[in-house]
């Protein structure tokens, strides 16, 4: 067979155009040499033409011709990437917005978490931005893969619903007074983020394979947090309230590692089995 695909010639940013035949043969004489003058152009100019003219044409045309299911996958993948980014970024924006009023309120009540240093806040924000960027980048890289699109969109959507309902429940549990109600407001973004992270890690990364285990982690963690917060005097460890340390590990530390590990693992799987679909 005529081996037209031996040498990848015209590279695009993703994938390569191997060969371009212009025109159509109007009779039985085969393609032969179509537009022979092209063959006498310098190779660099030809490559440039392919890269600057043919490739953009093809890309635009293909965009409208994707199979329906693939278009759907791409769209869902893009939504997934957006939701991931928002799920990460919004809670931290919330921390920033709520931090100062919440800290004042917290100090005026029982200083429930004990995270009071401004440097810590800045560190936390920088960390959150970096994490958000990293996670978003990872999701963006593999957003068109059916596996990610399907599981990520579902995971993110579920996470948002859970985030809202659980946070509302958490607030209701604590509003014995107006003042306390407001003091728990600042938990909203942090707790939301925690729930979103946990759920995504559970569904997407496969770090927690069993749904039951994931739910136990989620519910158990919240119950433990409430019990320790309400009834157990917390020791101060390194200047930080023990309960808050537990909270950070439960809500941020483990889910963060699980989510990143899960995404990297997903990326490896996609690289190894590029054709796999769900």
């Amino acid at each position, binding site marked *: *067979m*005529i*081996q*037209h*695909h031996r*040498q*990848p*010639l*015209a590279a*695009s940013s*993703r*994938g*390569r*155009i*191997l*060969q*371009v*035949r*212009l*025109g*159509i*043969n*109007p*009779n*039985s*004489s*085969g*393609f*032969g*040499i*179509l*537009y*022979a*003058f*092209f*063959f*006498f*152009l310098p*190779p660099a100019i*030809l490559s440039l033409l392919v890269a600057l003219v*043919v490739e953009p*044409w*093809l890309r*635009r*045309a*293909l*965009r*409208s*011709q994707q*199979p329906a*299911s*693939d*278009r759907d*996958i*791409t769209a869902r993948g893009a939504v997934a990437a957006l939701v991931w980014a928002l799920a990460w970024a919004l809670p931290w924006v919330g921390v920033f917005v709520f931090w100062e009023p919440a800290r004042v309120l917290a100090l005026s009540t029982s200083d429930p978490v004990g995270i009071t240093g401004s440097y810590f806040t800045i560190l936390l924000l920088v960390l959150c931005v970096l994490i958000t960027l990293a996670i978003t980048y990872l999701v963006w890289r593999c957003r*068109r893969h*059916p596996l990610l699109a399907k599981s990520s969109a579902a995971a993110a959507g579920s996470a948002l619903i859970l985030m809202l309902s659980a946070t509302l429940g958490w607030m209701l549990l604590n509003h014995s007074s107006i003042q306390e109600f407001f003091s728990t407001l600042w938990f909203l973004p942090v707790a939301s983020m925690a729930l979103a992270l946990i759920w995504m890690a559970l569904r997407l990364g496969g770090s927690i394979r069993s749904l039951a285990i994931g739910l136990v982690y989620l519910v158990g963690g919240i119950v433990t947090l409430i019990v320790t917060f309400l009834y157990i005097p917390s020791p101060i460890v390194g200047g930080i309230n023990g309960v808050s340390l537990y909270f950070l590990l439960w809500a941020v530390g483990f889910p963060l590692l699980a989510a990143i590990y899960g995404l990297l693992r997903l990326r490896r799987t996609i690289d190894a089995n*590029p*054709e796999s*679909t769900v």
Partner: protein
Amino acid sequence: MRIQKVRYEHFGGIVATEDPVSLAWVDRDYLRARGFAGGAIWSGEDPGYLRAPLEMEIAIGSRCNLCCPCCYTTAKHDGRDVPETQVVRALQVAAEMEVFHVAFGGGEPLLHPGLLSLAREARARNLLPALTTNGTLVTEQWGRAAHGLFARVNVSVDVPGGPRDPHCSSDVAWRAVKILRQAGVACGVNFIMTSRTFDLLPQVFEGAAKAGADSVLLLRLKPAGRGSAVYDALRLSSAQQKALLATALGLSKRHHVPFHLDCALAPLLMTAGRSSKILHLLGATGCIAGQLLVTVDLDGMVQPCSHLDLRVGPVEDLPELWRRRPAWGGFGASQPALSVRCATCAVADLCRGGCAAVKNHHGLSLAASDPDIACQPK
């Protein structure tokens, strides 16, 4: 640019476009990155050949109102039309195999009463139809009907002393080109070069430019059909072949009309010092019979090339026949075992030793080198 179809191949896929018509070979990453998940062929072993031909030429009749001495066929005034149902069957097979282009041939296609209907059948199956006509039957009404239906209509042109029916004026062809161009049909001209008409190339390019043709397809006289009788006397000389590229390039530049070379002339360009990178990038091919092209004759039988009498089987069996490569004889081989002259040539895999019809005319095997082509192996 509109996508005609995307056909998955083992290496990735072929993206066919319309307006402009093109075929782009792309790798798997390219398609995957654009949301195309591939097919079963991506997970199997490389079969060593394409999943289907790129184009199918279908003979729809053997009638012609002219009797050109250099014609590749033996079409005559009292020929016959192929029943539409038979042609539609071939179109259906082509569509199922995801062939891209179909060319209606045989005799003069416009003599077939169902030509436009067949073109619509092709379009309905996402196949791009094209044809070559002698131009005598092209009217403004036909031109309007052909617009949007045929991806290309080429008109065989004549010049004084040319290879066409001496009773037909060349003005007929030029007029047909003008009508088709005015109707918005992509239209070029075909010109069979002989030793006697080679020097008339300037007239052809000039006429093409004046008529508004978008290209000139230069064809080599072949020992097929009526051309067999005049081939030895009229074939291009070595000197003419060696002067062809420079002449055509100069005329193309002067008249701003692109030109094509048919498969039988491809060795001239392939060995003209162009880099293999360019040859590959632009899909230069010599003989593509049974590789990228199949033809269907008047009886609905598949042949690798219409210029040869090698029937592989009925068109209905083409999907199975295509996979049975030995059924195609030497045309089915991935790499042709070529004789000494071509064996060491760097472009032998693309050129495949020149025109099979010429070899056959001289009683040579497919492995032999085309004895009448004046190329210099690389």
